[in-house]
């Protein structure tokens, strides 16, 4: 050993000593650091959303591929990754103050799904801006969720989940005034759910040792039911689920519903395995089955009457989500498997919907059904993607959603006919809602001189108006617009960065679409590639089903 330390001698021969450090990164730490690094770079690149999106998408797909390798191997390899011969990621757990975070095949499956679905959503989001916070904060959320999934102790899974919930507020709000209500609702409800589940952690040691008095079990079970019920957005906590697709940018729901629900389900399964006594009375499953049916019914009743695409998507998602809760409520390993498979198909469905809606909203600037007139001719692939996605959420035959829903309906028809018919009729309602929407896309395109229908929610914005009018928010204007307005000069909304008749996804302060044709072109090409990839995955579902089964492989607390 010389003055430089143990690696000093090597460095004299081969270069700076730090290049030869055999850095041993535990797997969870590697994924966390990689996601956090991408988040930082994306934040620095947020002015160039195209590059930020490409980086986030490619980074997530790479990390997803790495974790998929992990998930597909029965026995973990000693070395997971080697970069440039120096950085090594091992299957060793990451230990901090006695707490452990470790990767295994099961949580590797959850991570790979999360990374791959997020990566695809990032790439499909390229045609239009989803808000400057979308890429960096989504990557931060993923980084927190990595530690939530890989935590060995239940309490730290929940704590990191809470951290991810708080970070998700920035993704949900995304600089859109209207989206703040949904973001606040999500933050408050998810925080409540997390706090209930953290309280459960206080009783777990006694439960695992079997020393908790028998009469103390019911209150703890109620805490579990309520906590997971809030996080799984059961009725009456379903408002956040509708609010996410209804108020946020089209790709945000894809990200949110591909990352949080798998993690919550995973935590539920690990809790069940660790403390089966909590689930012995099957109360949780009964409650979830009943309230899941209510969720489906609410979604089905509301979907048929919607006149806005964003709300139609919201209620269609609610129906699909409710069916997976019913599957979960069956209380069997098979039911859990269906619920997890539906997560995968839902991610594909939402990806199709998000891609289609992103392109269509870019063209129409309004999400009223009537504003999409002529889009079938002008944006055929986008309309087809939107239709396919919505029909898939409705569980229409020959769509990805049907593959997840049919086994559940089949099972329900055997013993719970009423629930089965609620599911079928709600799916039909979403289908009818979708067909009404598609009908509005028929007909000739709106002529250039004809104004689009006014959006009542932003009726304060005068169409083609004058910025001196009181409805236009001063704070939303760029500096030139503000100066002109303060001088009392009539200013075109276009000058101030506003568009007349802007809709739910493009209100006055909404992030604007990239004007750069190159960025749009790249975005469209990437979106097409992503759609092709999704199509290929849907046609070859084997690996995904296998991954779902692997995720559920350790469910020992449920009857088969």
């Amino acid at each position, binding site marked *: 050993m010389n003055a430089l330390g143990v690696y000093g001698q090597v460095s004299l021969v081969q270069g700076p000593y730090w290049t030869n450090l055999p850095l041993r990164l535990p797997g969870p730490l590697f994924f966390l650091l990689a996601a956090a690094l991408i988040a930082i770079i994306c934040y620095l690149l947020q002015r160039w959303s195209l590059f930020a999106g490409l980086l986030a998408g490619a980074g997530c797909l790479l990390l997803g591929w790495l974790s998929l390798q992990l998930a597909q191997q029965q026995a973990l390899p000693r070395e997971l990754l080697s970069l440039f011969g120096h950085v090594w990621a091992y299957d060793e757990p990451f230990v*901090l*103050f006695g*707490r452990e975070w470790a990767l295994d095949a099961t949580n590797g499956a959850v991570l790979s799904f999360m990374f791959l679905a997020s990566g695809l959503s990032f790439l499909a989001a390229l045609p239009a801006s989803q808000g400057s916070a979308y890429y960096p904060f989504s990557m931060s959320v993923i980084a927190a969720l990595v530690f939530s999934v890989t935590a060995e102790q239940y*309490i*730290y899974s929940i*704590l*990191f989940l*809470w*951290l991810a919930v*708080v*970070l998700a*507020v*920035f993704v949900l*709000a995304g*600089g*859109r*005034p209207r*989206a*703040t*209500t949904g*973001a*606040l609702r999500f*933050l*408050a409800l998810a*925080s*409540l759910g997390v*706090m209930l589940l*953290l*309280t459960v*952690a*206080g*009783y777990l040691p006694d439960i695992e040792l079997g020393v908790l*008095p028998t*009469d*103390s079990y019911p*209150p703890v079970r109620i805490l579990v039911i309520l906590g997971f019920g809030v996080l799984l957005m059961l009725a009456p906590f379903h408002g956040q689920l509708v609010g996410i697709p209804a108020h946020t940018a089209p790709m945000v729901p894809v990200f949110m519903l591909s990352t949080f629900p798998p993690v919550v389900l995973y935590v539920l399964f690990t809790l069940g395995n660790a403390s089966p006594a909590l689930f012995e009375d099957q109360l949780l499953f009964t409650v979830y089955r009943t309230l899941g049916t209510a969720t489906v019914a609410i979604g089905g009743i509301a979907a048929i009457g919607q006149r806005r695409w964003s709300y139609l998507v919201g209620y269609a998602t609610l129906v699909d989500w409710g069916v997976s809760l019913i599957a979960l409520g069956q209380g069997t390993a098979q039911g859990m498997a269906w619920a997890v498979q539906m997560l995968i198909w839902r991610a594909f469905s939402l990806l199709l919907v998000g891609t289609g809606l992103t392109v269509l909203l870019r063209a129409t600037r309004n999400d009223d059904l009537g504003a999409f007139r002529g889009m079938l001719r002008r944006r055929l692939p986008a309309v087809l993607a939107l239709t396919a996605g919505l029909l898939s959420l409705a569980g229409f035959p020959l769509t990805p959603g049907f593959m997840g829903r049919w086994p559940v309906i089949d099972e329900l028809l055997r013993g719970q006919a009423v629930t089965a018919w609620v599911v079928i009729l709600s799916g039909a309602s979403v289908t009818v809602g979708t067909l009404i929407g598609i009908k509005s896309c028929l007909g000739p395109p709106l002529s250039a001189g004809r104004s689009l229908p006014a959006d009542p929610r932003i009726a*304060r914005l005068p169409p083609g108006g004058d910025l*001196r009018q*009181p*409805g*236009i*928010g*001063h*704070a*939303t204007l760029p500096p030139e617009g503000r100066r002109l*307005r*303060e001088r*009392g000069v009539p200013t075109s909304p276009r000058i101030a960065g506003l568009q007349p008749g802007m809709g739910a996804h493009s*209100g*006055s*302060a909404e992030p604007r679409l990239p004007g750069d044709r190159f960025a749009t072109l790249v975005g469209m090409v990437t979106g097409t590639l992503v759609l092709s990839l999704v199509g290929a995955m849907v046609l070859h579902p084997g690996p995904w089903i296998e991954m779902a089964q692997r995720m559920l492989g350790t469910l020992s607390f449920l009857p088969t």
Partner: protein
Amino acid sequence: MYPWQQILADLTHLSAWPVFVGLLITSSVIVVASDWRFWLWSLLAQYVLLGVLHMRVLGLELALTKVVAGALVCPMLYWAARSVESERAHKAEVERERITKEKGEVPLPPLPWPVRSTNWMFRLLTTLLLFLVLYSVSRSLPEGLLLVDADIAPVCIWLWLVGLLVLVLTSEPLPAGVGLLTLVSGFDLFFDAFSPGLVGLGILSAITLLLGLAISYLTTVRELTGELL
């Protein structure tokens, strides 16, 4: 030993009841007052008072971390609220001048911000009702289920109740955020009492700070548009 060290050492043995009285006042101000400045001062006082109870559970150094995290949240919210309020005042002034010039009418001054949909008397009575609920609940709490000391449990429950009440009464990010922070601060004390540990403490402090940041962000973004007059 310096006198302040002696005081701090004595505080670690303090019963929760004097702190509880202080928290009753601060949280009631958060519910009843209409001016956001009172909420933030009360929130700050609440974090300091809770710090005393944290000292009993965690020790002086770690409790100080909690107080610092809470104290850092208040300026975040202050600057967000201040910026939104001044922006609204400026916008209102410009619009009032314009309306006066164009229509010859002097419009009414804008509503105070943030708008609370209920009046102070209603909120005061609801707070009193909550206190009765707390009294009833704390008398019937099952001994076996309590994870914390008997004098700390009512403090936690009171903060949860007040936080929930504020969340229920408003959809504005700033008051709802202050309510959420009150709720979380009560849970924070509860959590530290049954699971004291460095990692948990660090993560919860980070969550508190991030909550402050997120609420400030929502407050600012919400006011990007909107009519004043």
